[in-house]
């Protein structure tokens, strides 16, 4: 078993190593000029400088923390709003016929409009920057959270519900102690999708013009010709996205809510 995993790890490293080598070769003397693709070492230096600020390589030296906090806050707030609305509505849609009939058609109608399509009207309503970003994140993250919570709640095994009822659960208890836990695997999948989308729409919103935020750094660096900073910001957004996903999944594991369904 161990050996197999080890092999799989090796296989997983082949492509990144090849890509990295290709990148390195491209940026060598006489290759692609640095204003299109900076070399790996330049990128690493700029990234470290972005975090620590002691070399002052770019105007953004030492500002990683400020921009990251701004971006993370927006994601948390936008995602939080999406989850706070999407989860209860989703669970209700999944279990209550009246909620499903009154909500679902409208939600799916709105869902067909791509999130990016909301950008112009959001800018009219909320102005450039903060408000638009939060609106776009909440809107885009809402749909996968809602749809998956509803799907999870509606596909709870009827036997589990019978078991809960015969053990004495009333309607409310049945919801909190059987339906929601049983719907968790699907619900968490929806939350993860929503969180990923939150990061995507964060960048879109921040591109419209905010003072702080990794998306703002990217746009600003493009205008000032700091190509390395664009790439460095992309890397940090990727890292934060991955990290937030790990924290989300980890916290649900901790709550013991992600036990694999047995074959019942």
């Amino acid at each position, binding site marked *: 078993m161990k050996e197999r995993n080890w092999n799989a790890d090796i296989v997983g490293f082949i492509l990144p190593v090849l890509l990295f080598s290709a990148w390195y070769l491209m940026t060598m003397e006489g290759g692609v000029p640095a204003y299109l693709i900076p070399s790996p070492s330049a990128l690493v230096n700029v990234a470290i400088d972005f975090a620590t600020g002691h070399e002052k390589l770019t105007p953004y030296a030492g500002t990683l923390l400020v921009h990251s906090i701004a971006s993370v806050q927006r994601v948390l707030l936008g995602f939080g709003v999406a989850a706070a609305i999407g989860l209860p509505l989703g669970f209700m849609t999944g279990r209550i016929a009246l909620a499903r009939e009154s909500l679902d058609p409208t939600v799916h109608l709105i869902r067909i409009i791509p999130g990016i399509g909301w950008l112009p009207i959001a800018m009219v309503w909320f102005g450039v920057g903060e408000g638009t970003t939060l609106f776009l994140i909440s809107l885009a993250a809402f749909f996968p959270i809602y749809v998956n919570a509803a799907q999870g709640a509606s596909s709870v095994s009827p036997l589990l519900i019978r078991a809960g009822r015969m053990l004495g659960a009333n309607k409310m208890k049945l919801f909190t102690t059987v339906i929601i*836990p049983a719907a968790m695997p699907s619900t968490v999948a929806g939350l993860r999708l929503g969180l990923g989308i939150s990061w995507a729409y964060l960048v879109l919103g921040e591109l419209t013009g905010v003072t702080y935020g990794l998306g703002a750094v990217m746009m600003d660096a493009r205008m000032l010709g700091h190509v390395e900073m664009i790439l460095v910001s992309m890397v940090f957004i990727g890292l934060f996205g991955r990290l937030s996903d790990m924290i989300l999944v980890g916290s649900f594991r901790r709550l013991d809510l992600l036990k694999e369904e047995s074959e019942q």
Partner: protein
Amino acid sequence: MKPLESTNLFANSINKSFSTPGMDSSLEVLEDIWFHIMEGEFVSILGPSGCGKSTFLNILAGFEEPDSGHVACCGETVKAPSPQRAVVFQSPVLFPWLSVKNNVRYGLDLRKEGKKGTEDIASSYIKAVGLDGFEDYYPSQLSGGMQQRAAMARALVLRPKVLLMDEPFASLDAQTRYSMQQLLLRLWEEYRHTVVFITHDVEEALLMSDRICIMSKRPGKIIEELPVPFARPRPLSLTGSREFSMLKNHILERLMT
């Protein structure tokens, strides 16, 4: 007529049919079933597959409503499921996100009994079904037989008036089934709860019950009720005796017709 005060659960003139989509006629599943069980009695309902015996149990449990007829438990009409009539299903149907201990505690916690007491009661029932040491395991980590033990503890811990069992051992292998039968009988000797036991296995019914109700093919109808004359405890060797095989043959003949 048996005296009414010791009758635990009864069903009078139960009829049930299911409508099939796209067809005018409906499928008649149960026809005029009369059934009663006394306190502490162990009664098997024996019938071929598809005869509606599980539907009948679902009606006793309150999961389904009969088209006509009346079910009452301890003087109250059955309208919905209740811990008074705890059910052990054919599959364990444990909550996969709860440990064995929390599955067993589930019904007690809903009753909001004292926390200390709950813990002790739950662990005594876990011990009674032979799962001590597995309290913190999750259902998916247990074998089918062990899961069914946990399901039995979860039902018994509520001290139900009647335990309704829907072919609880049908999906287990022969050895596990035998040890589960022995366990159920031991628990029954100890707690003396009333048991309605659904099965299609003639030997199982003869080894376990005080009385057997034989159901016909669909539409299900109780065609014969017979008391099981053997003294308890009944060893497995009983199955080789003449009287046992005569009774078994008689039941098999009734099932065929």
